[in-house]
């Protein structure tokens, strides 16, 4: 019955808008007060120049339910005008639900379209057309709790860490302190695509480049999962399923998380930030992206597109850069990012952000992300048992995913 009630959802309020001006609404998944204040200040400046836009609101939706809430709003005829988007972007682009942006952004004086890094626009482009501005391109990095390592008598060297070293040191920290060795943030034995920050080190990928062939059963993937399995049951460096450990609360020696998560560091312990550890295949880097697009179902597509161009112009992109690594070459230097980022130094930002963007892969993303995520999780659950047959489970995972990869 809830399904049917979806259809009863209201749209925007044309009656109110006829009184004078357009109301724009953008859905976001951040609830960070400072970030929302920044969005509000940019919107206020825009409205001062555009009296036809009466109000711009930023609708903060919980991250865990973001996609389902957004699609429910779309289905219920209550579409936002602009949406912050992650893995749902593939579905929205494939369904032709997003307004094209290239012409508008290229035609806006001073916007400097050529300043965008080509590699970060690929995720939100189809056939040369950009459908969402990639406003956040946050590489994944390895955070280290130096206090915990010191307690366990462990040190990390100056050079690149390998995954084997991380697991060995993490195991020693666990044995000495009872705290976790390393955690992959937001994985929690549910969001398995977060393991896409680990398996590129073994040269593995969830599917091939055009997303048609499952890669979960490759030999490289078997080796990557064998490493994770050993980390849980042999090294005891990674907390097993059903065990909670939050690095930022001081519960783990290492975590893999996006650079933008540095805002969670509150000074409770000394920390370092490193590029991702190397695997048997060598060095690699992974970025997590968020874009902003205009929904075609918006009643104010021209105004929403115009506001998007303003929100992401060079001056505002520089302001947003304090929270979200920007897609503009002109802003991508360690000192420039450090000028607005209070948690990491210029050298750390250079190493963890700038140096990682070129050649970085994204987390696995495909159309039908929720279905792929759930079917993959259901199949992979069996791998987290102590006596799991890793090759067999990964084979079954591909059996479950392959029909969805079209």
């Amino acid at each position: 019955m809830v399904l049917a009630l979806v259809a009863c959802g209201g749209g925007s309020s044309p009656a109110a808008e006829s009184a004078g001006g357009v109301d724009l609404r953008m859905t976001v998944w951040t609830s960070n007060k400072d970030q929302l204040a920044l969005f509000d200040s940019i919107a206020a400046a825009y409205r001062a120049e555009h009296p036809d836009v009466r109000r711009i609101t930023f609708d903060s939706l919980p991250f865990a339910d973001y996609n389902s809430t957004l699609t429910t709003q779309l289905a219920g005829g209550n579409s936002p005008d602009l949406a912050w988007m992650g893995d749902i972007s593939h579905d929205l682009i494939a369904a032709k639900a997003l307004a094209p942006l290239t012409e508008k952004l290229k035609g806006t004086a001073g916007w400097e379209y050529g300043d965008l890094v080509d590699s970060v626009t690929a995720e939100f482009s189809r056939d040369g057309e950009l459908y969402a501005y990639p406003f956040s391109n946050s590489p994944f990095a390895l955070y280290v709790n130096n206090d915990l390592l010191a307690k366990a008598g462990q040190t990390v060297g100056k050079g690149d860490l390998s995954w084997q070293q991380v697991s060995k040191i993490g195991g020693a920290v666990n044995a000495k302190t009872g705290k976790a060795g390393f955690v992959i943030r937001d994985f929690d034995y549910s969001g398995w695509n977060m393991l896409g920050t680990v398996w590129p080190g073994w040269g593995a990928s969830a599917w091939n480049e055009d997303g048609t062939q499952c890669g979960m059963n490759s030999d490289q993937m078997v080796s990557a999962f064998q490493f994770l399995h050993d980390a849980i049951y042999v090294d005891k460096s990674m907390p097993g399923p059903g065990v909670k450990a939050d690095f930022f609360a001081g519960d783990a020696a290492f975590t893999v998380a996006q650079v933008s998560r540095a805002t969670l560091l509150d000074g409770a312990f000394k920390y370092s930030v490193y590029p991702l550890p190397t695997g048997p295949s060598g060095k690699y880097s992974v970025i997590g992206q968020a874009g902003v697009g205009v929904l075609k179902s918006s009643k104010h597509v021209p105004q929403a597109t115009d506001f998007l161009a303003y929100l992401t112009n060079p001056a505002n992109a520089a302001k947003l850069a304090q929270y979200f690594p920007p897609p503009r070459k002109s802003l991508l230097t360690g000192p420039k990012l450090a000028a607005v980022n209070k948690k990491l130094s210029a050298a750390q930002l250079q190493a963890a952000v700038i140096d990682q963007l070129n050649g970085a892969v994204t987390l696995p993303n495909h159309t039908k992300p929720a279905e792929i995520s759930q079917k993959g999780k259901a199949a992979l659950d069996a791998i987290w048992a102590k006596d799991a047959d890793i090759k067999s489970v990964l084979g079954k995972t591909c059996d479950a995913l392959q029909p969805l990869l079209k």
Partner: protein
Amino acid sequence: MAGYLFVAPQMLGVLLFVLLPVGLAIYYSFNTWNVFTGEMTFNGGSNYSDLVNDPQLPKVLLATLIFSGGVVVLNLSVGLLLAVLLNRRLPGVTAFRAIFFSPVVVSVVAWTLVWGFLLQDNGGINGLLSVVGIDGPNWLQQGPTAMVSVIFAQVVRSVGVNVVLFLAALQGVPRELYEAARVDGANSRKVFFGITLPMISPTLLLTGVITVVGALQAFAQIAVLTQGGPGVSTTVLVYYVFQQAFEFNNIGYGSTLALMLLSFVLVLTILQWQLRRKWVFHEE
């Protein structure tokens, strides 16, 4: 006219929040709805053929049967047992009644979150077990224990309602029937099965119906504790409806599943209502 006006608010509610949604669900079940563009396409009943061909559905139905069966049997039997124990005139019995009923008034999500922490591998339950030298299982991560855990969390939270209803029924049984049975030399077992059960059988019917319906609609426990896992071992039908409709955006197929769930509830309720003639006292 006054009669119609009297029932009008209730009828309006039923019309808007029951009949209209059911009608729309039937409509959606014959369509494919692209939620991103709002485009609705008639698909000639392919959602119903998907129902037959869905390889996951038998597992979901089995999980639903185990969960609902476990909840109904435990809820009724434990509820009745507790009610019989709490029906005695003992000191402090009122406090126990309040304790057993109190989980019912707690938010289901808050209740389930607490159980999630208690049942995790390094949680409170295993902590207690380790005190007595038992290495507890990873409750929510293994198929059998995950199902036991969600059933247990559901029963402990909801059994209070049945206890209260059974208590009211037990207190309504005429004392003279018990006195007469004692005079005739009946033992406790005979008194329970010969007098108590028949006399409270209308309440048993009521609790049976609401417990079956409640078990088939349990959602938050699954969503918070296991998300249907491990594998699909705790994916009950109502959670599967949610997944298909709101996570996978297959609203047409989700509607079809929802209608199947509705038909299960209807059939079971009608069956119980018809069977009342066989076992409910006072009924023809």
